[in-house]
């Protein structure tokens, strides 16, 4: 039985883990870098150990130091959170060797999930559909042509050494493919000195829909429904919701069965996520497994009523799942907004610095997981996620309006945030109608809409803000012009 967990992470996810442990009477060990001595996870844990400098490589990624801290603190388990060491199979392996309960899949399973090619072929073997295309690298243009004609154009040629848009070409016929093959090869060689091409069906207006996987050490597996995470920027999720507006019960069950197969195919244990692309025609294609607790897990907690961290601990303790698939019922609707420290108008550039004041939203069916407190600092060393704001409703409309009210209540002074963008999105007809896709922001010009909304807001608030300015100015004028006796008109003393 796990009695003391070291949390090899920081920020809101460390707090999330601490909260459940606290409730269960399990001791928690926080670790912190030079940058984090004043962070919330240090304050909330049963114990806190300093592990190094601000740069992640010198602290949160420092495997030896973390292992040393596990051993010296007497922790019997480690929770990796997400990011940092969470999907590092070397580290998982080290923990296994040292008899430390790593709360997550086995190192072996993690390895398999991490190797995209190997994982894909495991899925094909298990008859879990992946994006149509070459099973691996294509050896020449003729093979590429054959595959393209098998899966139908348009297809995407992609050098696995490319990245950032380089070494990728979408082609719509044989002629374009022949040309494209050469271009991609030469682009990739000129950029990184080598080329290895795969062919994949090009899908338009896709949705990102993922499933919560859950499998115990005895091989009992369930899925805990889907999450739609189509609203993204630069391939990073911004807003997630469950249920997906395009997943009905039949689809949920059907794809859910594939998810169970997928978890078996890689011998996955504990909680994980199977990510799918959903084409506009309704087909689901497996993309990859995230071998850890996901940022957006709270929306699944809300509709399932489960505490996922408790579930992780129970599975890590070797307990069999306390439910079967049929026992799991989805209840209501949940939305999560990732509150990032970033400037929407500067191409989502990170915005960091001190936060002198913050107001955290609350209320029925509102949950805000955050490390923010008045006087804290958003560090440039770590990722920009400051808070996960989650709301639940009996209907989608209820969860949406609750989220809007909560976003309005959320105030973070000192850094730019994604809050205004989310208000614009949640108020848009496209969002209300569930017309989602991974290019949602561009497709519907959300950033321009945001600019308009901000202008409208200024106009709405103009009288009030002028009133505030008048009082400030008049009081100040009064302070200069009059002697102290006549300034007693002003009840309030200003320093």
């Amino acid at each position, binding site marked *: 039985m796990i009695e003391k967990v070291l949390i090899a992470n920081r920020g809101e996810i460390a707090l999330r883990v601490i909260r459940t442990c606290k409730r269960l009477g399990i001791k928690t060990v926080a670790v912190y870098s030079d940058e984090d001595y004043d962070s919330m996870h240090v304050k909330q844990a049963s114990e806190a150990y300093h592990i190094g400098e601000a740069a992640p490589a010198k602290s949160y990624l420092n495997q030896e130091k973390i292992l040393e801290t596990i051993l010296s603190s007497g922790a019997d388990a480690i929770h990796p959170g997400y990011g940092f060491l969470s999907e590092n199979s070397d580290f998982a392996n080290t923990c296994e060797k040292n008899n430390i309960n790593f709360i997550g899949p086995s190192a072996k399973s993690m390895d398999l999930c991490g190797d995209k090619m190997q994982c894909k072929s495991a899925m094909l073997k298990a008859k879990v559909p992946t994006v149509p295309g070459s099973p691996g690298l294509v050896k020449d243009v003729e093979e590429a042509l054959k595959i393209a004609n098998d899966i139908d154009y348009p297809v995407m040629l992609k050098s696995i050494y490319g990245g950032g848009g380089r070494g990728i070409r979408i082609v719509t016929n044989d002629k374009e493919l022949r040309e494209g093959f050469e271009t991609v090869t030469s682009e990739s060689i000129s950029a990184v000195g080598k080329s290895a091409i795969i062919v994949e069906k090009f899908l338009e207006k896709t949705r990102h829909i993922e499933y919560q996987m859950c499998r115990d050490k005895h091989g009992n597996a369930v899925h805990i429904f889907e999450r739609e995470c189509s609203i993204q920027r630069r391939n990073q999720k911004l807003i997630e919701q469950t249920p997906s507006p395009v997943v009905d019960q039949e689809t949920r069950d059907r794809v859910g069965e594939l998810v169970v197969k997928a978890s078996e195919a890689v011998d996955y244990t504990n909680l994980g996520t199977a990510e799918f692309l959903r084409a506009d025609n309704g087909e689901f294609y497996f993309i990859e497994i995230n071998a850890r607790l996901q940022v957006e897990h709270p929306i699944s907690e809300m509709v399932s009523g489960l505490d996922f961290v408790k579930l992780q601990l129970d599975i890590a303790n070797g307990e069999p799942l306390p439910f079967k698939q049929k026992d799991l019922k989805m209840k209501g609707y949940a939305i999560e907004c990732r509150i990032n420290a970033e400037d929407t108008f500067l191409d989502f550039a990170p915005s960091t610095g001190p936060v002198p*004041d913050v*107001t955290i939203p609350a209320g029925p069916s509102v949950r805000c997981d955050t490390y923010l407190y008045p006087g804290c600092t958003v560090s440039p060393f770590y990722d920009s996620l400051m808070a996960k704001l989650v709301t639940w409703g009996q209907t989608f409309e209820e969860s949406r309006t609750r989220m809007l009210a909560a976003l*309005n*209540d*959320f*105030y973070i*002074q000192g850094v730019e945030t994604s809050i205004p963008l989310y208000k614009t999105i949640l108020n848009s007809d496209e969002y209300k109608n569930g017309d989602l896709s991974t290019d949602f922001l561009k497709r519907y010009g959300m950033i321009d809409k945001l600019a308009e909304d901000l*202008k409208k*807001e*200024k*106009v709405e*608030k*103009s*009288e*009030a*803000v*002028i*009133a*505030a*300015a*008048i*009082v*400030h*100015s*008049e*009081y*100040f*004028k009064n*302070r*200069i*012009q009059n002697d*102290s006796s006549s300034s007693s*008109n002003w*009840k*309030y*003393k*200003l*320093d």
Partner: protein
Amino acid sequence: MDYKIPDIKKSFDGKIVKNLGNNDYIIKINDNEHNLKIIRMNSGGIEFILDQKYHKAKYLEQSTNEMNIVIDNVPIIINRHSHFDEVVYKHSGGAGTGNAQLSLKSQIPGKVVSISVAEGDSVRKGDVVCTLESMKMQVSVKAHKDGVVKSIKIKETASVAKGDPIADIE
């Protein structure tokens, strides 16, 4: 006083028209009068009810011409034409004639942000002697006459009260 909000074309002429007592005021913005009740106020912000509607404003950094206000969680920058420096100057005796007083005195309580002169410096009437911060605003204090700075009575980051001597100028 005149106010401008960037992105909004019209400008706002605003003032307090009447003090009704009990923290109730009538203010006028352009041609319309409004009731304003101050609930709470300090240099960091104000809470008030404007025509039956509550608002909360935070005063962030302010200069004499630009105000940075967060109203009901919405950040807005306002430009204003205040002439506060001149008013301070006038009241410190600078605008008067034949004022022979030795001490340049502070007309406002505030914190000394910077001192622009050293003892022994010659100054001309109107030269900036120091900058004070008061109510999150920075205001220049200017010499009230020509002369030599005989002694400086303040220190940077120190607080001064209204009427405190800033410097002796002979």
